[in-house]
């Protein structure tokens, strides 16, 4: 288990991470979601022992990670721009990592290279961005560490490759309890892979929840009320995160379980109502808007 307590990190006068506390359970896929500059990479770099926190602690299986070889043996960090030696090929990198990670599985690595159609003799410098990320992921998987930290690693992977990697993750989680921690700003990328998400915003954690719990606790309802009184009655005592009205059609995002919402709307006189599934992106936007972060404003200027 990785436990992060009150983690804070400054870069000169900029507070990149502000009092972050998160627990990451084993054998789950943890997604670290955040806007640009939210501090995802900084958290991952502290988690991997690259950066020393200004305040707070990071413990990997109860061991502090900074400059601790034993803790780092349990981690493999794939940076947003992974580094490969000059003029190296996949074999060179395998040789380097297999010298460092005692459980590195060379056979598996070369099998994966074949599967992903990566030439082990080709210079990595000639690889595409996506191929480099694939190679970094394969090196990380074959290092057989307990935790693999991926910083925007799935960006640039085509859907087929992404699916392939996800399959390997699933297999490794099943076989040896791999715990992937994936940071991304691309919500769709994480939606179908993460079990638990931590939402970072301006250096702090907005929420850290199981994805299913999150999806269960936020509902989107489309309905046409018969009257204003019905509307007031329906929304009374329920936390409304967002409400949009187009003509008589209301789209309301509320914090509640599906059962509660359905039970409440069943007693109200409506012309029409339907509880719709929320995408992770919609949950993200709703949660950030609650704290005054207008994602649309940011995107649309």
């Amino acid at each position, binding site marked *: 288990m990785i436990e992060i307590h009150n983690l804070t990190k400054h*870069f*000169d006068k900029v507070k990149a991470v502000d009092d972050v506390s998160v627990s990451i359970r084993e054998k789950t896929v943890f997604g670290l979601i955040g806007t640009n500059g939210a501090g995802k990479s900084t958290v991952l*770099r502290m988690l*991997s*022992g*690259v*950066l*020393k926190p200004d305040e707070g602690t990071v413990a990997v299986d109860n061991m502090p990670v900074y*400059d601790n*070889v*034993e803790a*780092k*043996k349990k*981690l*493999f*960090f794939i*940076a947003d*721009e*992974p*580094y490969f*030696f000059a003029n190296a090929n996949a074999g*060179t990198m395998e*040789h*380097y*990592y*297999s*010298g*460092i*990670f*005692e459980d590195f599985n060379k056979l598996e690595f070369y099998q994966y290279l074949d599967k992903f159609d990566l030439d082990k003799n080709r210079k990595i410098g000639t690889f595409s961005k996506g191929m480099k990320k694939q190679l970094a992921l394969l090196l990380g998987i074959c290092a057989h560490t307990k935790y693999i930290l991926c910083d925007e690693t799935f960006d640039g992977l085509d859907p087929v490759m992404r699916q392939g990697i996800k399959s390997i993750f699933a297999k490794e989680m099943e076989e040896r309890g791999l715990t992937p921690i994936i940071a991304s700003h691309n919500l769709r990328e994480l939606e179908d892979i993460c079990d638990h998400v931590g939402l970072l915003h301006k250096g702090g954690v907005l929420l850290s929840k199981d994805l299913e719990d999150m999806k269960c606790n936020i509902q989107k309802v489309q309905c046409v009320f018969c009257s204003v009184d019905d509307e007031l009655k329906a929304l009374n005592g329920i936390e409304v995160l967002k409400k949009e009205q187009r003509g008589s059609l209301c789209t309301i995002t509320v914090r509640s379980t599906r059962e509660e919402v359905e039970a409440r709307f069943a007693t109200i006189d409506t012309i029409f109502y339907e509880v719709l599934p929320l995408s992770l992106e919609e949950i993200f936007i709703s949660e950030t808007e609650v704290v005054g972060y207008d994602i649309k404003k940011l995107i649309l200027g």
Partner: protein
Amino acid sequence: MTSKNSFWDSCRENHKRRIWVWIVAVLSQLLAYGGITMIYLSRIKGYYADGNYKAPAAFKEALYQAAKDSIGFSDNLYTLILVLAAIIAMQGFSYLYDRRKVDMYHSVPVSKDRRFVVVYVNGLFLYLIANLLGLASGMVIAVSQGAVNAEVLAAAGLAFVWNLAFFLVFYHLMILAVMLTGNRFVTICLFLAFAIYEFMAYSSINNLKQTFFETYSGYFIHQEAKLSPLVDYTANIWQLKYAKDAAAAAKLAMPLAAKWFGIALVVLLLAWFAYKKRASEAAGKAVAYRFLEPFLKVAAAVPAAYLVGQFVYDTSHQNELLLVLGMLLGGLIVCSVMEVVFDFDIRSIFKHLISSGVALAAIMVIFCIFKWDLFGYDSYIPAQNKVESIAISTDGYYDSYWDENGQYLDNPDYQKETMFLTDTEPVLTLARHAKPLDREGLSNNRCVEILYRLTSGRQAARRIWVDYDDPETAALLNRIFSTEAFQKGMFQGMEDETSYDRVETINYSNGAAMTIVPKEEAKGLRDAWVKDMEQFDFSLVRNNRPCGVIRMSYGADMSYMQRSYYVYESFVNTIDYLKKQEAYYPVELNAADIDLIKVTCYHNEFSVNPDMLYRDDPGYAFYREAVAAEAEYVDTYVDYSTEETFYEEEQIAQILPHIYPNYIDAPWSSYGEDADDSNNYYLEVVFKKDSSYPYERGSYYFTYCFRNGEVPEFVKEATAYTGESAE
């Protein structure tokens, strides 16, 4: 059996990342040793083929020296070693500049300590292998040419240790520079600053003292970098190259090497500390530790400001206002540039004005200290009870000094080592009696260098200016010159009593004649001279010229060495001794031996010193007007010289008592100073070819001058200027 992640595995893996450095290091060392050895030996063989070495032994000796020059202490190596140390260190730790590399290296399960040690040991190993390969290649070539003996081997061994210590200092300095910075450009700047800062600081301070202090002296104490291996290396390499033997070289080189190892160790500890404390996020920044930025700024701005100021001062005919403006401007520019470099942003040019203000204030404080002599440098004369002894050197005498191994010694070094005036009162009084510095050079004041050895163990050196013709000054100098301590520190012949057995030849010269004294008489002759030195004082040498000089030449390993003993007419013991050896000839010549005397008179009284034209002296008003009248071009040099040749024996006889040979120096003598007859007249004395006079150097033609105020009237008339020069 090593584990999968053993130290040596890590080293091997690290070497794979350094292949180009290996190639550069090995190739450069092969060329520096093997290539240079080949060139040097080939050159010697070429000289031999051309017949430049008469004896085979000399040829062999030249081969050995050439081999020593290339694989022993070589002046070709230090730049290469310095650059190599910088490249190896920077390449090894350059991953710290790159965030991507830092992310990889710092996330893998390798401790920071292990990573440092692996990179450090590999760099050292890389240098050692390359250096030994180069040395071996040079050695093989030298052996194949028969140019190796025990001395060459010993020199090579010593030089290896010396070069290793030198390498380590700069290797560690570059590691420290990498640890303190975040990109290559700033690292190189900091490394260069580390390498030369102390030297630059001392140079700047010495120049400021020279500019503003009248009594500044670099004669006895030249303040120079004490912790700079670069200064040590360049200052000693020639002595090491030509050391008498390996023991002499070791005596000089090993203490320096030990000092360098010490410096290297301290720098390594600092680098290690900086490495341990360095944050990963420093990658790519100019300076890894933000708190260092103002210190670096001030440290760079002060000497840079001085350099700019000095340049402006020198090129503006020593305008002090421009000096101040130049310093401030130089300091400001450096502060601004450094801010831009720190942030990689031109908009930061006026950032952190407080530290810029501190830098400018420091510059002005330093200027004020020197300009107004705030610490009383010029007025410093120690209290008599605080002075243990004094060494002085007075303008007017120069000698060459040699040690027992035949090695040349600098005058200040010899005098510092041997002169201990414990009667300090006359020197301190002389210092109080000193004249102000005449920057225009209009006076005849002469300089006296003084070294105060204080009871506290400290030493202080000052230069004062005195008037030799002032009676009070002469009296003080008499007291100083008449002491045995002064004479021993000034004349090596007074001090040296042990090397008579190495004297090869003794001759006596009165300027024209040269006679030989048997070398067995060396001790007796020197003892007689020492006895005569009891009457030696300033008045004697100021008012008299030597009537001759005894020269003792040494053989074997002191073959370059010669000692001169000046003989004055009052030195009766010496003259008697020479007479007994039938070696004495009076300075006065016999007219019967002389064929002719040709006298040239330069008429210096008409000459104009162009430098004087622009002075405010009313005496030069006429010339200034002349210059103003012919504004475009004035030929200030006019030849007024006239000459006359005298053949008559009677005239020659009248001239001879008044002339003096140019060949004999006259230390401290008033003769030959400005406007003296000895400068105005030049005499060529030609002996008769059938004369029995024992001419020196096989010649019968000698140059003389007139003693001051003794030019015969008929000579003056014959050489009077009549409007036509000798040309």
